[in-house]
Each structure stands twice: as structure tokens, then as C-alpha cells.
């Protein structure tokens, strides 16, 4: 029997702010010594008053707009009550009935072509502290992360395979990093995901029992954990067993999912509106301001690169993967236009030579861009287009520009890399060759036409190979007939 797979992802993304969600402590917890970014608010001390971080709300709304959501006008922060040592106040401030953003979508490459994955909601909440378990049976609590602003992005159960789940997660990361609301750093936990998965026999209407896999922190693991879990559930069903709604954890070491606590009922969290935080009322004008902050998104830019710049789908994809690279390319194209250089040629320099140099040096483009300015890509192609340099010299000049941070034109001039095609320099060398070799000239004039080959050789030697033999021959013939 065939089984249908239903997957929904809940993604937790740290909102990139300087300070925490409800207090002025630094949200940069990764490298800080334990319990140094804490205050009465984020340690849940009695009498402290939480005040929402305006920027966190703005960035969460910006995310909602990027994900095609509607932004709710009335927002309530709620308390989600449960006891755990990493939660200092005994409740997590979150949103329940009134999420900030609702009804969005993300377009991905599905298993059967383009696919739209629905988004149920994006809501804001605070992160918990960090627990470290000791060998002698204790747990150590660090509250630096407590109160760090998070967004929870919940998808509809529209995903039907582990590969699609990975692609959806990757697409979401791309967008979040692109609009600057999240660092995309999955290793430090700034972006992590829980996956809900169920299977049911083909033909059955009702969904199977939902199993939640917690805390997956890489694209590879989301795919592997889901593949394992689907296999496990299908095997159980085939053996006539029942799947129980439950929570499991992904165990990297064994490549399996492991049963965790049985899921508590939502009612047990006893959500109620946070009395210390007045409602957030977001006006249409405020939402319009957020919309104005929204940059062109990767999909739209990719399309534009293909139509306006004549890029292949592959190049357009590569050049819209990362915002920094994409913006750099745009700057290079802006410099290329007035020089009559085609955006396509600029793309070739970027994805070919520059990516190779970055790979060799191990740098990011942002770092290397301080030396290799975007306009240098346009400049080197212009030199090539105008026949000033050969392709070999162009690469050499580009490499030097990358290493030294100087303009290719300057490098070409200093190193005498310019093709000696015509003009005074070549004429001088041609005259010199004629003056130095009266015998050969005599033979040529006497009818031995092939004698010119020797003269061409002499001039080429003088130009150190930076002239085209055809140009040299032409110049020689001109001089020889004139004299």
C-alpha cells in the first residue's frame, strides 16, 4: 500500500536586534560569559516591567510582509505558562490567539515543479535560557539567551517529502538573511526548526497521528530526520501498529529519532494576556512604512536579472542567492552600463574569475570587495572590449586588482600590458626594426615577401608579445611601402 506524507515546519528565528525583546540587555549571547547579559526583567524577578523592543516588532512585521502575510492590527502578548529551569519567570512571553502575521506563503521548487507552501502564522516570542547538564547529575543555567527576541514561523502542512522540507527551510533562510532580520547562523541556534510529520494510507482522508521532531539545526538533518521518521511510521503501520501523537528528538549520532515526552495539551499552558504589556496596535500607515523598508526579494530579482540582463537561469540563481553578492553585481552592472559593457560579461567575471579567487583566498565577497571594487569588473571587460588587452592579460590584470586593490586600467598601464595595436609606440618599434635590419629590408623590397616574417618576429620581441602579429605586419607593410 502507498502512504501519503504530510509535513509542516515550525521555524524559530532569532530577530537580529542589539537588545533583548523586553529589556536593554545585549541579545548577543553566543560568546558572552554566562549570566553577564541579564537584568531583573530577563531573569523574571518580581516587580520588573517588560517593555517591547520596537525594532523587533518592526523586523517581525517586515518578515511577515516578505512572506506575503497579512499584518494584524491588534496584537496581544500572552504568557505561556510552564515550569522549566531555563524559563526564569515560569512563563514564556509569546503570542497565542493574535499572531503578528497570518496567511502567507513561500514559493519553492517542489518535487513536481513550482510549489506554493502556505504559512499559517508568524508570531513573536522570547527565547529561554540555556541549560548545561553536568556529569554529577546537576544542570547549570545561563540566562544570557533568556528574553532574546524570536519569531516562530509556522507553515501549513503543505510539504510532502523530506526534500521539499529542506528546500522550504533553505528558501526561508535565504529570505530572512536577505531582508536582514536573521543571521542565518544555524550552528549557534539563531535559526532552528521543529518538523511535524504524519503518514496515512493513500485514499484515507483524515491525517495520520502527528509526530513532532524537535530542534533540528541543519538542512541535512531536517531531510534525514524526516526520511527516518517517515520510514519508521510506515513500517509501524504496515505491521498493524498505531502511531501515537508524540514528540521525538533527532539523534545525530545514531541517525534516528528518539521518543521524548508525550505532548502536553495546549490547555495546560494556560495562556493568558500579559498584563504588563499594553496591546500593540499597528496602523495601516505603520505597515506601509514597513513595506517601504522591504527590499526587492530574491525571486523578483532573479526574474529581473534574466529579463533585463539576459542572464541564464543558472547565473541569475547564483547571483541572487546572497544579498551581498547580488548587490555587488548590481553595482558592477551600474558601472558597466555607461562603458557599454554587457551585464552578461560582468556576470561571467563575477561567477567565474572572482568566485575562483574567493575560493582560493577563503574570503567572503564582502571582505574582498574592499579591494576588488565592483566597477573593476566593468573596467576590465571594457579594456578587453576595446582591444586594449588580450584575454590572458585581462585575467592577469583582474587577479592583480583582486590582490592589490587597484584599478585594472592602472595595472595595465603600469605593467605595459596594453596590446600594442597601432599608434606611435608600434610605429616607433617598426621603424626601429627596419633601421636595424637593412639587409632583410633589402631582400623584402627585392621581392622576397616572406622576409617580412623575420621583421615581424623582431617587433613582437620588442613588444614582449603584447601586439597582434596581424597588426605588426600591417604596420610594417605601411612603413616599408612609404620609405
Amino acid at each position, binding site marked *: 500500500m502507498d502512504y501519503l506524507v504530510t509535513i509542516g515546519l515550525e521555524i524559530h528565528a532569532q530577530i537580529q*536586534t*542589539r*537588545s533583548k525583546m523586553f*529589556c*536593554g*540587555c*545585549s541579545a548577543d549571547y553566543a560568546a558572552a*560569559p*554566562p*549570566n*553577564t*547579559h*541579564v*537584568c*531583573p526583567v530577563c*531573569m523574571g524577578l518580581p516587580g520588573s516591567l517588560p*517593555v*517591547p*523592543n*520596537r*525594532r*523587533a*516588532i518592526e523586523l517581525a512585521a517586515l518578515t511577515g510582509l516578505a512572506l506575503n502575510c497579512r499584518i494584524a492590527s491588534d496584537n*496581544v502578548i500572552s504568557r505561556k*505558562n510552564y*515550569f*522549566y*529551569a531555563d524559563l526564569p519567570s515560569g512563563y514564556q512571553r509569546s503570542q497565542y490567539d493574535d499572531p503578528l502575521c497570518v496567511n502567507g506563503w513561500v514559493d519553492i521548487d517542489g518535487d513536481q515543479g513550482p510549489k506554493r507552501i502556505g504559512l499559517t502564522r508568524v508570531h513573536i516570542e522570547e527565547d529561554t535560557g540555556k*541549560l*548545561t*547538564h*553536568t556529569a554529577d*547529575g*546537576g*544542570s*547549570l*543555567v*545561563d*540566562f544570557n539567551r533568556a528574553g532574546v527576541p524570536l519569531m516562530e514561523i509556522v507553515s501549513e502542512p503543505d510539504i510532502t517529502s523530506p526534500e521539499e522540507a529542506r528546500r522550504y527551510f533553505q528558501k526561508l533562510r535565504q529570505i530572512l538573511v536577505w531582508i536582514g532580520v536573521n543571521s542565518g547562523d544555524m550552528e549557534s541556534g539563531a535559526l532552528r526548526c521543529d518538523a511535524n510529520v504524519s503518514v496515512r494510507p493513500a485514499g484515507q482522508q483524515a491525517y495520520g497521528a502527528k509526530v513532532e521532531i524537535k530542534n533540528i539545526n541543519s538542512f541535512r538533518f531536517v531531510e534525514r530526520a524526516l526520511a527516518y521518521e517517515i520510514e519508521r511510521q510506515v513500517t509501524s503501520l504496515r505491521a498493524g501498529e498505531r502511531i501515537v501523537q508524540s514528540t521525538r528528538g533527532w539523534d545525530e549520532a545514531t541517525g534516528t529519532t528518539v521518543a*521524548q*515526552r*508525550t505532548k502536553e495539551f495546549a490547555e*495546560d499552558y*494556560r495562556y*493568558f*494576556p500579559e*498584563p504588563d*504589556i*499594553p*496591546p*500593540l*496596535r499597528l496602523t495601516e500607515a505603520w505597515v506601509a512604512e514597513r513595506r517601504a523598508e522591504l527590499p526587492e526579494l530574491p525571486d523578483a530579482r532573479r526574474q529581473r536579472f534574466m529579463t533585463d540582463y539576459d542572464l541564464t537561469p543558472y547565473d541569475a540563481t547564483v547571483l541572487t542567492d546572497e544579498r551581498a553578492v547580488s548587490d555587488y553585481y548590481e553595482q558592477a552592472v551600474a558601472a558597466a552600463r555607461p562603458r557599454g559593457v554587457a551585464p552578461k560579461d560582468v556576470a561571467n567575471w563575477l561567477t567565474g574569475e572572482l568566485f575562483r579567487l574567493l575560493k582560493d583566498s577563503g574570503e567572503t565577497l564582502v571582505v574582498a570587495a574592499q579591494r576588488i571594487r565592483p566597477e573593476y569588473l566593468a573596467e576590465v571587460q571594457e579594456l578587453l572590449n576595446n582591444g586594449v588587452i588580450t584575454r590572458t592579460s585581462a585575467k592577469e590584470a583582474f587577479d592583480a586588482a583582486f590582490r592589490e586593490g587597484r584599478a585594472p586600467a592602472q595595472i595595465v598601464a603600469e605593467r605595459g600590458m596594453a596590446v600594442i595595436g597601432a599608434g606611435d609606440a608600434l610605429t616607433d618599434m617598426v621603424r626601429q626594426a627596419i633601421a636595424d635590419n637593412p639587409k632583410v629590408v633589402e631582400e623584402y623590397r627585392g621581392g622576397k615577401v616572406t622576409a617580412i616574417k623575420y621583421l615581424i618576429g623582431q617587433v613582437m620581441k620588442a613588444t614582449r608579445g603584447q601586439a597582434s602579429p596581424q597588426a605588426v605586419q600591417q604596420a610594417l607593410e605601411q612603413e616599408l611601402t612609404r620609405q
Partner: protein
Amino acid sequence: MALTLAEVEHVARLARLRLSPAELEKMREQLSNILDHFQMLQQIDVSTIPPTAQVTDLVNVMRDDELRPSLAREQALANAPVQQDGMFRVRAIFEE
């Protein structure tokens, strides 16, 4: 409205309270009385009044994303019954 003992036990468990049978019975009576009082409030017609969880009439109280000094770690840990390596030490946490 009389609560059952099972309901009281459930609420006690959520609040991490360990109650003796006598205390459970006492709580059952007291909580039932409180609920009765709310039952009375529920008879008032509020259909024309929008629900609210606030009494201050404030909206949009927010702060700029600026850093403010945190506590010194010694201060943060001052009331910790047990501490270790600059952290609060608690009993091992077992998954239920």
C-alpha cells in the same frame, strides 16, 4: 459549581504544588466558591463591551533597540541557593 478532586489535583500539578488529601479537599471547596463568584459575574450582559485584558488604556508602549547596562554577575547570582561556574545550579532535569 463544584470542582472534582481530579480537577483540583490537575491544577495543583500544573502549579507544582504537592497537596495532602485534606488540603486537596479544602482547595476543592475554596476554588469552587471562587468559580461560583465568577458564575455570578457571567450573568452580566457584556455583549456590547469589547473584551480587554488591560485597564490602563495604554497602547504601543515600546522602547528603542538600545543597550542598557546589565547586572554584574555576582549581583545576578546573589540569591542563587547553589551556583557553579557563574551559573545557577539546579537539580538534574529529567524528561518526564
